[in-house]
């Protein structure tokens, strides 16, 4: 088990390194930060001085090793735009994004899974059809359409909620609602499918045949077995807590990680983009690592297989 875990941790670290290396190379090959940052009217003297100041004249391998060295010393660099610390910029924006994504995740879990399970337990009923229809609607409609639709109804027409910004808790309602819809749909669909599959298994028939109550059958036998695919999806959702609000943050002018990412990439603010990608990749990899470990906890067969390995 320890070997298995260490292998997974090593793979996770390697994934993060590969992401960082790929981003480092691509960012430098896809446009000169000096020309982008200073704009099309900048004097060439200024462009040359900028390149020299930020070491952009050095060979890319030299820049890369300097970058790895500074990362190893927990120095994440400074922004080319205003010379502020890249990691501080990211950390300043993180709470704003989590203020949207954490409530969104809770809403998605709180509505999506029960709705899917209920639909599976009441197959072919009106409720089942309703859940299917709404879930398809939820995950097929793009968030930028949903966001603008909600703004049109609740901000422009009814005037109940603000259309954008981050001045109060009321400003968070529409972005959270926009992001929740898609996830609820996905979770409902997956939960329903997983439960339907489990409910058709022989061990469910056995449980019912030995006289267990319907409640016990569902809670003790069906749900734990259906949870493996659901946990996979939830893992992805947890992993995207940090980077999952890019579009919505833009629509609602919410100053979080997503907007920082867009601005930093378009300006080729190298230190900030690399810092963001490090944080985002780490969160995704850690979430997946947790999912891997959760499989073992949820499914004794996987645990046994791992031990056998």
């Amino acid at each position, binding site marked *: 088990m320890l070997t298995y875990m260490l292998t997974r941790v090593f793979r996770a670290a390697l994934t993060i390194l590969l992401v960082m290396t790929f981003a480092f190379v691509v960012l430098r090959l896809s*446009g000169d930060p000096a020309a982008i940052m200073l704009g099309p*009217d900048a004097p060439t*003297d200024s462009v040359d001085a900028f390149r020299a100041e930020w070491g952009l004249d050095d060979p890319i391998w030299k820049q890369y090793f300097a970058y790895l060295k500074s990362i190893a010393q927990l120095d994440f660099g400074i922004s080319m735009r*205003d010379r502020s610390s890249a990691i501080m910029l990211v950390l300043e924006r993180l709470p704003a994004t989590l203020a949207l994504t954490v409530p969104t995740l809770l809403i998605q879990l709180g509505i999506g899974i029960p709705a899917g399970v209920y639909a599976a337990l009441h197959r072919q009923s009106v409720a089942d059809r309703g859940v299917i229809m709404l879930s398809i609607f939820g995950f097929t409609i793009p968030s930028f359409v949903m966001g603008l639709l909600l703004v049109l109804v609740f901000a422009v027409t009814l*005037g109940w909620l603000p259309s954008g910004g981050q001045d109060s808790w009321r400003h968070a309602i529409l972005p959270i609602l926009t992001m929740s819809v898609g996830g609820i749909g996905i979770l409902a669909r997956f939960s329903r499918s997983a439960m339907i599959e489990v409910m058709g298994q022989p061990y469910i028939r056995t449980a019912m045949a030995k006289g267990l109550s319907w409640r016990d059958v569902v809670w003790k036998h069906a749900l734990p077995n259906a949870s493996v695919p659901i946990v996979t999806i939830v893992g992805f959702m947890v992993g995207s807590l940090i980077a999952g609000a890019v579009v919505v943050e*833009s629509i609602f002018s919410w100053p979080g990680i997503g907007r920082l990412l867009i601005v930093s990439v378009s300006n080729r603010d190298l230190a900030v983009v690399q810092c963001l990608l490090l944080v985002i990749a780490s969160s995704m990899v850690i979430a997946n690592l947790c999912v891997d470990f959760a499989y073992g906890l949820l499914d004794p067969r996987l645990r046994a297989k791992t031990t056998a390995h």
Partner: protein
Amino acid sequence: MLIQRRHALGLIGAAAGSMALPGRGFAATQRRSITVAVQKITNNNTLDVWNEQSNVGERVFFPNLWEGLINRDWMGDQGGVPGLATEWTRLDDKTIELKLRQGVKFHNGDEMTADDVVFSFSDERVFAGTQPDGGKTLYPENFKPKTDKELPAGVPGVGRRLWPALRGVEAVDKYTVRFHNASPDVTLEGRMIAFGSQIASRRAWDEATNYAEWANAPVTTGAYKVLEYRPDVSLTLVAHDDYWGGRPPLAEIRFLEVPEVASRVNGLLSGEYDFACDLPPDQLDAVRKVAGLEVQGSTILNHRIQVFDKTHPVLADPLIRRAMTHSIDRQLIVDALWDGQTRVPAGLQWEFYDDMFIKGWTAPQFDLTLARDLVKQSGYKGDAIPFRVLNNYYINQVSNAQIMVEMWKQAGLNVELQMVENWGQVLSDETQRGVRDWSNSATFNDPVSSIVAQHGPNGLQQQRGEWTNAEMNDLSNFMQKSVDRPARKKAFARMLEITEREDPAFQVLHQNCVFTGMKSELNWKAAPAFAMDFRAQNWRAS
């Protein structure tokens, strides 16, 4: 489990903290506060006029925050009007003396004196020890920065572009300064109006611990001062009640960054924003048809152009470039994409050049027969000409490019659109360049601020190796040094002939314009610029 609980508590705390941001609840005041939704507040995340030389910077800086010795007449003809100087006199072709306005207070309460003006044009603040053309700095021994504040690398180059031959500023007495140039220059007054030549408090600079801290809230003399700047989020200015021009009419101006145009329009429609800036023409009707809202649009001192790269084998032949300039029906583009709200300019010049404006000069005439004939004369075989285009960096850029490609096709030219992501890719010479989009502004009222600065020997086009012309370069040097006004005008006319007809360096397309949606009750007038004037003389709302 403990870790999970802590993690959850951390997230909840972070979420709660994020939502409990400072509210907008200001104490009751008789003066109104306004919210202005903009696509971008600044590009470089600073409020330094030398570092943020952009259109968006112009909007948040002028005329409310930064002021110069001579201010631009934003609501008038864009010429110069007395600002922090009340009068100025030419002592000779290289020297100008200015009398400072007395009693002007900086945002920190200090009185503005000659010392602050000297500082604002010093090596410490702008030039970083760079030498002026044709001479040495006035007091080189004065370049002894009192702190370890270092200017961003780009600033000295930008400063020297506007003031290539400035040797220094001399404080004659507390309220008198002299600008000393190394060479004769008839445009010194114009350069004082330009973006960058504004005055900052020396004490505030000295007291700041680093450049970033200073540039986040520079202390100036404008009618409004910085309360809070959150880069990429918002900029809040509040009234500077000691303003020399009278009590500002607004308590607070809040520029809010709303990147999506639909969101800016929605915020205006829902009443949250008083102004929504940077509206594209296709959104104007959505605002106009709502009672209580209106759109203000105005042409600005900026022309959209296409730049040619003479190193391209096909474009090396001026006949092809001339054919390209005559293939474009500019008025049709103005009518179709801009709802007729802008115009085809008289070449790369503006009326505010005044006596330097070349009357009778026009953009190349749309003449498809002539264009086809020129193509035929050139022996063009149909080789592709690349046209690098950004995704709507300029309003309507992509639609405009697509239309022009079709117009060039009508003349028998095979122009190939290449969508690129950023300016680095637009200007890159790693692959063969052909045509690219650009826009040219006039920073002050003389051709050296535009055609010389952008297409002369030190301009971007020549520095990037796209185009050069020996006669044009001689004329550029002449324009910068000559004080013979009739000869300068003649030289400018010749430059237009070279760059727009004989050996085209670029083609003008249309004058740029900006559209701002606003609440009609504000009774406010937009300037013919990005700048938004919220001083008393332009604020009539109750």
